[in-house]
């Protein structure tokens, strides 16, 4: 039985490879766009924001992204472990910038693949975030630019370089309070468009469009939790006529400790008010 399973895995892998080989060979745009079946994913994201000086902070994010597979249909298995770090600069209460790097570890979730199980991916990224109060809510514009080196799981796969151009619009609307403060439940609709460019990008500049709604709860000024659902779609790199889709459940923890010494913190805890 065990042997049979192993064999059948190999058979399926071969078949898939053949199909993808065929597909690569085609590389022609279909006359109509084709949408793949949506995948389901679950993301567990932590967002750390360590204040290290009056104007600088360390942005530390670790995401665990699960993707459904045949065997584990819903929550799936770990697809990526994602480490995003940056040093942020607080220009003002409403404006901040970040610059840093990402080390993403991609796991091969293809159970049939006998390619490399793990492939690292590197990025340099910088981000410009603007916040605007609106009535009792806040809206945010985030521009994020990433320089990305990726390679596939295949043994002979080489790193390809792409740039990603991301814009996200997000709002946070308090539900049980007149403003965003501790013990507040809020709803946050967001939309992010991710465009890409690079030699490898021929017909698929729109990498991803993400539409998310999350529900969050501010526990303390330094700790917030949130959860939500994201729908996303985007062109596949191989063929701009083929769109991948996914439904992702997202769970977030936001924490922002202040690791400065008390004596540095006290006199100038605020920067420009």
């Amino acid at each position, binding site marked *: 039985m065990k042997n049979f399973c192993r064999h059948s895995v190999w058979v399926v892998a071969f078949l898939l490879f053949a199909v993808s080989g065929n597909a690569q060979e085609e590389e022609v745009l279909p006359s109509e766009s084709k949408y793949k079946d949506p995948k389901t994913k679950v993301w567990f994201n932590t967002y750390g924001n360590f204040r290290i000086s009056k104007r600088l902070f360390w942005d530390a994010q670790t995401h665990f992204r699960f993707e459904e597979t045949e065997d584990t249909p819903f929550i799936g298995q770990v697809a990526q472990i994602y480490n995003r770090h940056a040093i942020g600069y607080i220009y003002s209460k409403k404006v901040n910038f970040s610059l840093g790097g990402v080390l993403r570890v991609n796991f091969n979730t293809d159970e049939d693949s006998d390619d490399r199980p793990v492939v690292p991916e590197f990025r340099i990224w910088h981000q410009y975030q603007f916040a605007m109060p609106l009535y009792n809510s806040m809206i945010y514009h985030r521009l994020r630019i990433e320089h990305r080196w990726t390679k596939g799981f295949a043994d002979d796969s080489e790193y390809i370089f792409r740039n990603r151009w991301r814009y996200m619009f997000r709002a946070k609307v308090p539900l049980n309070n007149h403003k*965003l403060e501790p013990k507040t439940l809020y709803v946050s609709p967001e939309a992010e468009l991710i465009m890409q460019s690079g030699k490898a990008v021929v017909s698929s500049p729109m990498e991803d469009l993400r539409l998310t709604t999350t529900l969050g709860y501010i526990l303390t000024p*330094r700790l*917030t939790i949130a959860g939500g659902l994201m729908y996303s779609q985007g062109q596949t790199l191989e063929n701009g006529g083929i769109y991948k889709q996914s439904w992702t459940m997202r769970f977030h923890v936001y924490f922002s400790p202040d690791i400065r010494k008390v004596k540095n913190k006290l006199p100038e*805890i605020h920067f420009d008010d």
Partner: protein
Amino acid sequence: MKPTFRPQSLFSLFLGLCFSMTMLGQEKLRYTGPFQLGSYVGEVDYTYQIIDGDTLLQGDFSMKRSSLNALIDQKDKTFSFSGAFEDGFPNGPWNFQFGEFQSDQKTEVVGYQYRVNVDGAQHQAQGNIVKGKPDGLWIISEQRIEDSEVAETLFSSQITYANGVPQQSFRIEGKQSTLVGRFLRTGLAHDDWTLFAEESNETWSFTDGVLRRVSMGEDTFDVFQSPFRAARTINLDKRFSKIIKLQVGPEKSEALKKGISKLLAENDAHYKNLDDILSQLGQSQFMPLFKVKVPYFPLDSVERNHVKSIKKDYVHAAKVAHGLLENTQLNLLRRSDAEAQFLYSVVQKINTAYLKPLQKVRRFEEQQVLDYVERNQLVQRLFPNGKPSTLITPEQGERGFEGPQASTFNFKEEAMVSLAQISAYAKVSLDQIASVLYEKVKNEQQQQEFVAFEEQMIAQINRLNQFIDSTDTSGAMGEALLNIKSIAEGKLNVYSNATQSDGKLEEAKLLVPCLATFEKLARNISGLPQKELEIQEAYKDAVWNPFMANLMEEEVKKRLTAAYRNVLVPYLLEQANSALECDKAKALDQLITDIHTRMLELREEDTAKLERKLRKEKNPETVLELFNLQPLEN
């Protein structure tokens, strides 16, 4: 003749050199400019020397003031003094002028000068001074000026002096009378001094300074006629008037106040004015000393002792009498209390019949008159209606008062002895009356104090009850408030059940602030929730939330606020709910305030260490110690 060089001339040259050196050392300095002399402010011009650090006037002196602006505006007070000094003494001819002028504001140009007519009065004095003393003829005059001309002489005095001693005849003119008299070489008054007046003449007849007789118009009376054992020369001044008054009696002395006495006093005032100016500038004895002789009855040592005791007793008795007569409580009390009224009128009687005459004795002693009065005459003058008796009968009423051991006092002794007896009797009588009256007043006052205290206490307890009734009395805080209320009421009950005694007033005095403390404590405790909010607010800090990009209030130093909320406040309420005595209530009230203040202070302080120590600390006393506060003593 051929000039020859002789040792003698060398010596005189040397002397001359030495002399000029000393002259250089004592160089004369000159001052001109503004100057103030008593109430006179004006321009001065004088020369002086500095000798041993002292300013010594030397040479001419002049000081004057006049203001045309003041004259035209309203009126001008002008003056001008000029004369000279020698070694600090006024010396040489002097001239004084004082004027007070008004102008009709009409001007006239004569030659190259503006001329303004003035009305007013001018005082003038001129004469010679030798070493600070008048010498030769001194003329002092006061004139009324109208249209810049003398309209009337108001006063004029012409007296001749030899080294300060008045000599020969003098003449003093008043507005409507003229006094003419003469002196012996020694300055003693002699012969008739006659005042020529329109109505009637007054003559004082002196023989070698002794005033023998006074005649006023038709009326003539003797003064010092009978021969006396001893005599003294004194100045003709106020003391002399006093002695005359005692000699001739009050009616005649009243008549003597006008006429010659008045004119002499006026003359004195003029001289005094000049003396004041001169003695401020240097050394002078400018007052003219008219001498007279009066009989002398010196006090012997026994009499002096009596006078001493009279004075002492009088001062004491007068103080007691005034204390009683001016006591408002007693004045109220005597309206309703017959005995108090009687004693009060006795005090009044003692005051008029005993103390007033004794006051005169004291004054005579101070004025040094006693040595010049015959003792029996003194007693006669002090008590014209005879010496008082030991039985003191107030003006209205038949009842008399006798002081303690009245029979031991004898007022019929020799003059000073009986005066001493009278003063001693007045003193002991007043002391006795005072002790009775003050006791009465004290009781009355105590009653009033009781009423005042009790009214206050009732107001306090009502206020406390009202306050607690209007407050929410559920929970631990409510229990504490109700406890305070019942303790305060209990204390008031204990007080009201106590019997009236001396101690009760003391108790009332203590209970009033005690009830005030309870009220204060109750208000402080009911303010605790408000204080908690205040602290909660104070222990918030705005932090920037990077995910929201906004500022959020964050509670800081949570261990401190937790210790306050969970340990200290329950402890305070528990204490307030215990058996509270006044002292403890006061301390607790203070502690509540102190904790609050301390909490607000700690917000700003570096409390890292304290916060570590507070971890899991549940003992309120330890917490208080950590907060540097004094725990309550149990």
